[in-house]
């Protein structure tokens, strides 16, 4: 092996080493990115009741929201001060609802209306105006009613035996915690939780003048 051959071999090794470093750098960058996403997903704790209604309802709901381009709230990690609550009216096979969001200092709300009372169905979205009492006051009313803290109805004694009828499903995503719970036919229940759910419904209807939206 002469000197020239050795030089060529050294050069080749150098190129291979450099190429390897570049590849490795890309891999590291990629794995860091994946790691960040995983951390972000892990950053959201989920509180989902082990109840018979949950998979059945969300199968129906997710089918509708996916078609309407609405994200899955239990897979959404919000910034620290952001929040989102969804209040769903479960009318047998018709699902209507209200979504309230706070992103930074910006509040917004939309009403969701199911076009059909049977499947397949599609959702109609409409922006809601500023609530009558203002965003902060309305949010305070809802939290006072227990929107962030109520337990699932199936875990309480607040569950009247009724087939079909009207259910209320709430989803909240706040402080990196996702929760959901349901109360069926609270109009027919005599318990504090049922009163709180109906109180939330009243707050939403009065503050956002929902009666006009659902005419």
């Amino acid at each position, binding site marked *: 092996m002469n000197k020239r051959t050795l030089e060529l071999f050294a050069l080749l090794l150098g190129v291979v080493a450099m190429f390897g470093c570049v590849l490795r750098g890309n891999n590291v960058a990629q794995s860091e990115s994946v790691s960040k996403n995983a951390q972000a997903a892990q950053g959201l704790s989920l509180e989902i009741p082990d*109840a*018979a*209604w949950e*998979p*059945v*309802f969300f199968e*129906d709901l997710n089918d509708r929201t996916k078609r309407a381009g609405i994200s899955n709230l239990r897979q959404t990690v919000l910034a620290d001060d952001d929040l989102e609550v969804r209040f769903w*009216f*479960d*009318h*047998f*096979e*018709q699902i*209507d609802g209200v979504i309230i969001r706070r992103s930074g200092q910006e509040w917004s709300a939309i009403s969701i209306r199911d076009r*059909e*009372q*049977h*499947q397949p169905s599609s959702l109609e979205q409409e922006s809601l105006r500023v609530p009558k009492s203002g965003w902060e006051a309305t949010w305070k009313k809802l939290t006072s009613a227990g929107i962030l803290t109520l337990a699932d109805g*199936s875990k309480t004694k607040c*569950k*009247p*035996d*009724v*087939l*079909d*009828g*009207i*259910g209320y*499903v709430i989803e909240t995503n706040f402080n990196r915690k996702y929760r959901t719970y*349901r109360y*069926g*036919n609270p*109009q*027919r229940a005599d318990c504090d939780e049922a009163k709180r759910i109906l109180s939330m*419904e009243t707050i939403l*209807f009065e503050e956002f003048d*929902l*009666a006009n939206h*659902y005419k």
Partner: protein
Amino acid sequence: MSSERVLPRFSGVGYWLELDPWGAEVYSWDPYLDDPQFSGGRGEGGPVFPGVGDISMPSTGCSGLLDGVLTLCDFFDRNKNGIGVERHYRDGTTERLSIDVFLGIIRVWHPGGRGNSSMEIDDNDVVRTNNNDAAYWEITYFILQNPTPMDIARRKNCATPNSIIEQFRSDFDAQWKRTTASGEENGSLLFYERATNSYPKVTLSEGRHLTDRITSVPAMPEIGPETRQAFSGFAKAGRDVSFLAFFHTHPNSGADTRSGNPSGDDTQYQYDHRNVLGIIRTGKGYSFFSNGRTFRSDDARASECIWILNNQRN
């Protein structure tokens, strides 16, 4: 009875239960070929095959009497002695035989010797042949080629979702007719009473629409108190019953048919009553749900024992 009459009626293929000299079954065939869901035959831990050794269990579904004796299946009455059947061998050949029913057991007589051998009469007037096969009785039973839901239920010795529909179809259809007329839900509770081996039914009062600020939807708001009342009534009468299934209708929405899926409240009621089978009638027909999950009549679960489904609680 001629084979022409019987074979098309039952579409039956004879499967043959071979017994050893002690009367024990030798298992010469595979029941799973006909029924992949075969769960071991009759309930109560009884023998796999009806007609041998356990006709003392009236709940087997084969409770017809023949000369005062519990008979294999109720369609085999005394008048059907001498039914013609075709025996299908695994090599593809068939043999037409006649059978009779004796003491509740179907049997086939095989005379000794089946060849075309010559027969001789000797000097002492004794008939001699070269047939060496001994004559014997063969015990058999039937598997129907296209079993109805009731056939399957009989064989499994239990009510299945499909057999319950067959048994209560006229009543359920009448409730659906009432629903289409009123737009309200109707329903029933079904129980099993072991003492009488029967399925008592409690008809619920017709439902009504419940209304919120957005819309009005059909519901069965009284099912809770009526369920408690039904249990209380049975208890007062000293009747021991098990809650087997609940049936209700989902009315059409205008001209549109609703799906046969349970609502959140339907699944909650099911959960609160130990996964009791749910049956829904819509404009599209019948559907079932167990553990909140819907299945149709062509699903294997629809031919499963209801008590097994109800015990498979998530």
